[in-house]
């Protein structure tokens, strides 16, 4: 006999509580009520980083460096695999804009102008804490057919505030354009030739760059000279978390 009564009591309480909530939610029907409460605006927590890049080569200017914030696990390239068209475009012409369309890319920060040999460039970026994941840094060695340098998939979460890490990276061959070094095929100042060309006439796999040969080292048709040769590492990257 007690159970139905208890149940009724609980139900009645629930109905009253519900009615109270419903009334509170109908404030716009009442002119005297206070202005509706706005949900508090939570400013996103930002994490700031600076990326300093130094060109270690003798005579290979680097295209404006692309710093790409990505989702965890996404990569701009993988050695042994074919380059994406966006990466091919960067490696053959220096244009990094296509990288924004790659899977997992959240944001692209671009360096200010060409990074000449010996120069250091700093790129700062501010990322929402919730989107901090992986970072890629990439640039073209412009006095080549399709050489690029950088790193892909650096895990930013390994850095606490004021932590820094230094990477010495190698030059890769996009595998999308034969390294003919011939006049008209290299976009940099050594030639002023063609940039991107959709034809893929190399092995179509990203691999370690074998270096350029140059006319001085026996490649008769090369527009390059001895100073355009390079060895690894070609670039130093220092990533610092500043906030």
């Amino acid at each position, binding site marked *: 006999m007690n159970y139905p009564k208890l149940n009724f009591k609980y139900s009645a309480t629930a109905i009253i509580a519900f009615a109270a909530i419903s009334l509170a939610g109908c404030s716009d029907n009442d002119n005297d009520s206070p202005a509706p409460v706005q949900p508090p605006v939570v400013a996103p927590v930002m994490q700031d980083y600076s990326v300093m890049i130094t060109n270690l080569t003798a005579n290979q200017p680097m295209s404006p460096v692309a710093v790409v914030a990505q989702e965890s696990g996404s990569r701009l390239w993988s*050695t042994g695999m074919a380059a994406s068209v966006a990466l091919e475009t960067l490696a053959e012409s220096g244009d990094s804009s296509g990288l924004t369309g790659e899977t997992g890319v959240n944001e692209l920060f671009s360096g200010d102008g060409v990074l000449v040999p010996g120069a250091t460039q700093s790129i700062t970026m501010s990322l929402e804490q919730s989107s901090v994941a992986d970072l890629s840094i990439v640039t073209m060695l412009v006095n080549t057919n399709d050489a690029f340098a950088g790193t892909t998939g650096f895990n930013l979460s390994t850095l606490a505030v004021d932590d820094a890490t230094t990477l010495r990276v190698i030059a890769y061959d996009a595998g999308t354009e034969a390294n003919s070094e011939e006049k008209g095929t290299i976009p940099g100042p050594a030639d002023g030739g063609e940039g991107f060309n959709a034809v893929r006439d190399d*092995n179509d*796999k990203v691999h*370690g760059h074998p*270096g350029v040969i140059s006319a001085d*080292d*026996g490649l008769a048709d090369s527009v390059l000279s001895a100073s355009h040769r390079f060895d*690894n590492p070609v670039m130093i990257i220092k990533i610092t978390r500043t906030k």
Partner: protein
Amino acid sequence: MNVNHVTKALILGSLMSLPATAAELEISVTNLTHGNYFTPLLIAAHDMDSHLFQAGEMATPALQKMAEGGDIGDLDAAVTGAGGVTMANPAMGLLAPSAKVESIMLDSGEMTHLSITAMVLPTNDAFVGLDAWKIPTEAGTYTFTLNAYDAGTEANDEIINGGGAVGTPGIPAAPGGDGGMNATGVMDSSSNDKVHIHPGVLGDTDVNAGTSDLDSRIHRWLNPVARVTVVVK
């Protein structure tokens, strides 16, 4: 009940954090070169005092055999004879330029260090090498790159003549079918007879003559020549 669960979790946790005495490794190797093959790889787990090679030391006869002709048999026997464990020829033949062999499983057992070698072909006596990397006790994914070494046992004349046996000059073969012939030979005036970083090949662009049977547009490389990923389970 709750206490019981917590206790169980603690016991389980402490068991899992005990230092590993055996590590299950999953290894991948990528050939980063533009036009060079790796002959059958030898991946070896061994104790802290063993080496397949050491930079600055003379090559052993077993290493010389591998570096000049690609034969890993004697190195493999030396490791297993000393209680080590190996994975020989995981790519089941040559590892082509820009190719990757992955999911190589190796139970390192009681062995603490990892080494890798393979000949770089076509060359006289270049090999890709990892010398006694300390296997981490912490589970995780470890990625690093490997350089090409010169065994210091044969002059780098760059003549392809089938010479792969120990003491025979010349290069055994160009597996890509992209080697030349009739080269007069590169004069190698190096006096370094120890294992050292390979200076790279010269090559030329004349497939029927010239000083080298290698092609400078195909067979050159810069270090590093391989990328290795080891997953410690």
